[in-house]
């Protein structure tokens, strides 16, 4: 599964994208975040305040309870600021 990070989430995590194999018990986006936070300080810092974290599963906006089973791409980013 490919994980993508954008804007300050990318800066704090220290990585823009990576291919990972998620543990079998990971079912939804919140599980992915919990798992990521065990992988180092950068991820802990990036996901310290979940009120400013948004996500997309397979390039569609998702929520923390969106299933990631069968997904190929999950992205994490702050609230968008285009326009």
């Amino acid at each position: 599964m490919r994980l993508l990070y954008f804007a300050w989430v990318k800066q704090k995590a220290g990585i823009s994208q990576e291919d990972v194999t998620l543990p079998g018990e990971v079912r939804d986006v919140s599980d992915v975040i919990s798992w990521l936070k065990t992988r180092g300080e950068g991820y802990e810092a990036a996901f310290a305040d979940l009120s400013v974290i948004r996500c997309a599963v397979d390039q569609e906006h998702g929520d923390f309870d969106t299933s990631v089973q069968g997904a190929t791409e999950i992205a994490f980013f702050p609230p968008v600021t285009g326009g």
Partner: protein
Amino acid sequence: MIRVQAEDFDIGTEVAALTKGRTDIGALVTFSGLVRDANDGTVASMELEHYPGMTEKELARIEQEANERWPLQASLIIHRVGKLMPGDNIVLVVTASPHRQAAFEAASFLMDYLKTRAPFWKREDKNGEAHWVDARESDGDAAAKWDL
């Protein structure tokens, strides 16, 4: 039509291309957004980051939604990415319809939704320091009124 590009755009050229050979359009609305200095000369430049792939899909979804809600004859969204300077164009929305109300409303809807749904992020270089622009609550309120 959707375009995500680093290059600048020219409003006159885009409008001419959109209306060329057509005599059915009665109303055409354009909105363009520019890089704004915070009135104090401190914004040196801005970097527009985006999520390639999802950006185009999300803009297409937003445009599709506008076309389902209003009788549009044409629509165009151009959004720039990369490094921009104060005064530069960022975004262009064009809507065309037989009468003005649909074109006005659809253009407003497209901008409100683009600002809260399309995966772009602004980073300002201000006083020699780069910082990510925070989302504005009023943008969320503006999008909420369309009840998508």
